[in-house]
Structures are given as structure tokens and as C-alpha cells.
């Protein structure tokens, strides 16, 4: 069975929680005791019907305030695929949560209310999905029941959104008219919208082609941990454990180890279940090489004729995630990139990007919570990276504040800075 991770964006008003509740309920992954708890809570809150949205509003503080605080992960499966939903809140102050949920997603569902149309918020969600390079985007036009399942309304919204999306980098865009409350086009095609010839939402999630989304070209193996059993049976064993972050490694391949530049060949690719002939993303394996050269955590094994950029000056888009401190030129931070951690200093902030209008503010002096900007960093030790659009693993990093140890920023590499 394949696995698909998707993120949902939209506010409570768009019916996002109801949509997820509906998917889980119709896919029969809501259990009786969960449903009973929700029924009970609905009655306590004075609701007239069982509020499926409560299925996903987990923490007491959220239920009391009727908002979603944090990314929540939900699970369901059909005979075809296992799904992991990153359910992210839609309010403007929670951009960081959407970015978090989007970072691992194969697909994003942006939800809009058919009556309200394409709001600033919907555009923001689509922009974030494209910034995080989610390969597939679905615009779910919800509450179609409240516009009499009108095809004209759906088509108008589709055109409006398509015009906006043309400015973004979205590889695959689908439009589906739904009613989460009544279940139209969620699992089965709706009898109320015979004019719609496309798949139901669930059918689309089951069928969308994701196998080509990975990078199988640029071989990248960040060394995570060195395995040295030092036992009688494995006296001289030395293996480099890690997760393949791109491309394919095969036994016998010529390899270069960064940063030393030493060359060797792959002796074997090993796992607990026995050796394998080849390893690709996201397999977690142990690579052994034929020459005794010094390799440690933070190094990267690559192919000699296809190497990542090695640089200390990095140009990146950064989403700032902290309310107490802000990012400004001169800020000193810790960067975690693949299995490397080192210090960085912020050299420059080129511009702050308005996520609603895509306007670039070049006069901005700092990045604050939920703001996104283009930043140049200088690292203490060189990093081995690819552009984020080419490789989400070797093109991403997080920034950590040394004083509080909190993760304060998320970055997507554009290239090396001159």
C-alpha cells in the first residue's frame, strides 16, 4: 500500500474541520467512542447537530475558544492508500503552522467557501503551498449546497483562482466542488452536481500520481551515525548509517565524501534484513565503503560527477516562527541542515514578502513572527546543499535560537549567495 501525506488549509468558517471529520467518518475511521464523545460535547455546547468539526479539535483550550491552536495529525486508510493528514489552522497568525504541516506534504487541500469566493486567506494558503513546493494542490470549493450546487458559481471561482495560481509555482492543480456537511463529492460523486465530471475528493487522493515527486537523480547521503559494533563478530566493522536524501546508490558506485573530497566505492549497502543492491529516498540504510577514510556525522556521501553546492554563503527564503525575537541583519543563530549543525550570521535581508499580495518590501529591517523574507546567511562551516525546488531534503533547514534553544525559523535554499 502506498502512503500519501496531505495538508489541509482553511479556517473553521470554511468548514475545514467538518471536511476532515467527513473524510474520516465516511472512510469509517471514526470510532464509536470518539463519535459519542463528540455528540456529548456538541450537546454541551448547545449545537443542534453533531459537530463533526469537534472530532479534530483536540485540546480543551481549543474547544473552549473554538479555534485550532496547532498542527494536528490524523490518519485513515482505504484499501489503496494510507493517508496522513496534517491539519493546520488557517488564521493569519498561524502561518508557521501551515508551513510546518506543508513541509512534509505531498498534496495540499485549500478550502474555500463557495459563497465568499477566493479570499486573501485562500491566496495565502496557495502561496505557502507553492513556497513549500508541495507537488499537488487541490482547491476544494466547499458549501456548494448553499449556492444551489450552481455550476456557474464553481466555474467563476475556478477561473479566478487559476488566474492567481498562474503567478505561483504549482505543478498540479485540481478543482473539486464539494459539500463537506452533506458529503457531496467527498467519497462518492454527488448526484446534486451531475455537471461535474471529475473525481470525488477521496478518489483524487487515492489516484494522484506521487511516485515521480521524489528526486531519484542527485545521489545524496547525509551521514547520520557511524556504526561500530566493536564486537568479536564484527571486529573491524564500520558502517555509515543514514537516510538517502536523493538519487540512487548502488553497490560498486564510485562516491565522493564531503567535505574531505576523498573518493572510494560502495562496498555494500546493509540493513538488518540483509544487504540490498540499491538504496533510494527515503530508505534508511547503512553504507560501507571500500577505503578506510575518515567519515563522520554531518559528512555527505555523493557521486563524483553530481555534487551539491558547497558554500558558506546561502541565499534562502525564511519563514520566521518566533514571537519573542525577530530576525535582522547581524542576528546570530544555529542552523540545522541535513545532519549538520553549525552557526550562522544573518548578512542581509533582501526583502520581506507580503504573503497576501506577493509584494516585496525591500525597506524591511526585520522578520517577525509569521513573516517570510529573502535572507542571506553566512555559516561558520560549509554546507552541502541543493536548491529547495530540486530537493526538499538537502534544500531545507531550520534556525535555532542559541539562548532559548527554540526553533525560530524555517528556510528554503535558493542557492549560494555571492
Amino acid at each position, binding site marked *: 500500500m502506498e502512503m500519501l501525506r496531505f495538508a489541509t488549509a482553511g479556517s473553521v468558517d470554511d468548514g475545514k474541520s467538518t471536511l476532515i471529520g467527513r473524510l474520516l467518518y465516511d472512510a469509517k475511521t471514526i470510532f464509536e467512542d470518539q463519535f459519542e464523545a463528540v455528540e456529548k460535547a456538541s450537546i454541551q455546547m448547545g449545537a443542534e447537530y453533531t459537530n463533526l468539526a469537534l472530532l479534530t479539535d483536540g485540546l480543551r*483550550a481549543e474547544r473552549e475558544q473554538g479555534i485550532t491552536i496547532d498542527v494536528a495529525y*490524523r*490518519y485513515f486508510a482505504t484499501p489503496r492508500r494510507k493517508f496522513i493528514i496534517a491539519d493546520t489552522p488557517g488564521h493569519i497568525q498561524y502561518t508557521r503552522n501551515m508551513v510546518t504541516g506543508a513541509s512534509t506534504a505531498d498534496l495540499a487541500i485549500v478550502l474555500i467557501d463557495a459563497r465568499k469566493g477566493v479570499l486573501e486567506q485562500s491566496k495565502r494558503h496557495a502561496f505557502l503551498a507553492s513556497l513549500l513546493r508541495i507537488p499537488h494542490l487541490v482547491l476544494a470549493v466547499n458549501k456548494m449546497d448553499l449556492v444551489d450546487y450552481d455550476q456557474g458559481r464553481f466555474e467563476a471561482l475556478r477561473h479566478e483562482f487559476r488566474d492567481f495560481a498562474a503567478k505561483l509555482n504549482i505543478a498540479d492543480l485540481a478543482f473539486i466542488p464539494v459539500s463537506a456537511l452533506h458529503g457531496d463529492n467527498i467519497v462518492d460523486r454527488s448526484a446534486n452536481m451531475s455537471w461535474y465530471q471529475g473525481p470525488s475528493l477521496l478518489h483524487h487522493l487515492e489516484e494522484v500520481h506521487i511516485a515521480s515527486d521524489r528526486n531519484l537523480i542527485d545521489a545524496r547521503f547525509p551521514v547520520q551515525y557511524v*556504526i561500530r559494533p566493536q564486537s568479536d563478530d564484527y571486529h573491524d566493522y564500520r558502517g555509515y548509517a543514514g537516510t538517502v536524501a536523493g538519487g540512487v546508490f548502488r553497490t560498486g558506485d564510485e562516491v565522493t565524501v564531503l567535505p574531505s573530497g576523498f573518493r572510494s566505492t560502495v562496498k555494500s549497502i546493509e540493513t538488518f534484513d540483509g544487504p540490498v543492491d540499491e538504496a533510494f529516498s527515503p530508505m534508511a540504510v547503512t553504507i560501507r565503503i571500500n577505503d578506510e577514510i575518515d567519515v563522520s556525522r554531518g559528512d555527505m556521501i555523493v557521486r563524483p560527477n553530481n555534487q551539491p553546492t558547497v558554500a558558506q554563503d546561502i541565499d534562502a527564503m525564511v519563514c520566521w516562527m518566533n514571537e519573542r525575537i525577530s530576525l535582522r541583519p547581524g542576528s546570530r543563530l544555529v542552523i540545522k541542515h541535513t*545532519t549538520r549543525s553549525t552557526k550562522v550570521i544573518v548578512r542581509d535581508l533582501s526583502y520581506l514578502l507580503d504573503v497576501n499580495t506577493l509584494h516585496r518590501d525591500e525597506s524591511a529591517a526585520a522578520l517577525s513572527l509569521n513573516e517570510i523574507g529573502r535572507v542571506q546567511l553566512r555559516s561558520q562551516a560549509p554546507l552541502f546543499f541543493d536548491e529547495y525546488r530540486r530537493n526538499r531534503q538537502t534544500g531545507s533547514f531550520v534556525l535555532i535560537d542559541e539562548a532559548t534553544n527554540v526553533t525560530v525559523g524555517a528556510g528554503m535554499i535558493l542557492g549560494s549567495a555571492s
Partner: protein
Amino acid sequence: MRMSFDLTHLRQLEAESVHIFREVAAEFENPCLLFSGGKDSIVMLHIAQKAFWPAKLPFAVMHVDTGHNFAEVLEFRDRRIAELGARLVVASVQEAIDAGMVTEETGPRASRNRLQTAVLLDAIERHRFDALFGGARRDEEKARAKERVYSFRDEFGQWDPKNQRPELWSLYNGRIRMGEHIRVFPISNYTELDVWQYIKDEQIEIPSVYFAHQREVFERDSMLLSTGPYITLMDGEEPFIERVRYRTVGDMSCTGAVESSADTVDKIIEEVAATRITERGATRADDKVSEAAMEDRKKEGYF
């Protein structure tokens, strides 16, 4: 013929877990794996073994022992630890009671559940553990759906759901100060069904109480509890023999059995796929206390 570049969901989940184990082992000084004898911690231990093979586990295994154990589970624990050549640390609730560190509840509904938290936090401090692997899954319970893979705990061992660190891609922030620690959940993304399918695929041995067997039980709060030395019957509670199995294994005095005839892993998978009640809802008296029971206990430092 060459293999395809597809990985099944179970292989992808396993790879993610292996990555997490190695990351923690690389970045922390003194991690420890919390082992309850339940299927989730057995699966976790199995993946840990795979992550570091052919080396032994680079960390200790800790059992927070309430003293109310299923004999089969203790036997299983000791055998498995010996096979792995791992180091076992037992944090005993009974010893903590004897030493006057905690006070035992009394009465027929007495539970050692809450006492576990204090005993766990004490052991963390005593052994200076800085990262603890737990077998919690996000599909188990609402409060867990929002838990990070690396769950940061302050010097009092407490969880603050509103102040969690953002967690992006597979980049985990393991920086802590002295006295603080993190809880790590390598199998966060497994569902109950994934766990059972993985047990089947990997042919992982599990304690016999998970399979259908005849047991003397009685009904309390619409759950079937086992009779035994750790529990006192209340008026009107009549023991009877039933064919049951356990869906979760924990403290014997508050873990319920379910009626079942599933005596093989295949039959359990069939049963889990068809079931309509969550495993915690069906079998854990401790979660029934209030709707936010788990949220509250987690904040206090429970696993």
C-alpha cells in the same frame, strides 16, 4: 530484474522511525527506551534493534514497573532484553511506595497509574536521562494528535501544548539545557492497524495475553477486568470465565480485556480492521476519568 522505487507504507514508516532513533542516538548523551511490554513498545524495540544493527542498542531500556504485571509480560521482557544484550533499568512503583516517596491510593478502585508519573520523573533525574523513547502513537487519543515527534519537557518534566517547538521536514531540534529532557515518539505515525500489520510482516513475537484465551474476569464500568491479586471486587461484581484478549497491555488493575476469539495475528488484524471502538476507549479505565484526562496527565509528565 531491477526492483521498483516504490516503498510500501510500512517500509516508509519504518524508515522514518529508524531515522529518528539514529538522530537521537547521535545528538543526545544518555537516551533511554521506555518499555512497558505492550505491543507498541515491543515494535519500538524491534525497530531500534534494526537501526543500530550489527551494533547493540546504544542506550538503556527502562521499565516503569507498577508491580501489577501480567506474569507473561515480565517473562517476555526479560527474555527479550537478554536476546538483545541490552541494559535494563527497572523503576519500581512498589519500591517508591515502600520508601515513602509516593502514597498508594486505597479502596477497590485504587490505581497506581498516577504514581507512575512521579516514579518515572524520579528515575529520569536519578539516571540523568536526557531523551526518552516512548511508544505513543498520534492516532491513540486527541491530545496525542498534536504531539511532536520530539516532545520537549521542562525541568519539572512537564509538557506545554501551547508552546511546542515547530517541527519541519525531518529536521529535529534536540537542543536542551541541563535538567531538561525530551520525549521522543518514533512510531508517532503508525496506527493500531499499522502496528499489527508490521508485527505480522516482521514476525515479531508478542506476549500471549494479546491472543484470545480463557480468563476469569468481571465487569466494571462496562469493561472486562481480570480478577487477581491486585484488585478487590466491589459489591455486585461477579467473576466469570470468558474468552478474551488484550488490545493494550499495562497495569493489570486498570487494563481491560475484550471478548475475542482472535488467536492469531491474522485474526487480530481482521478484528482491528473491523472494530469500531478505539483501543484506549475500550480498555483503559485511566482515560475515562474525563474528556481531557490524557491532556491533563501529559502536562504533568505522564508518557
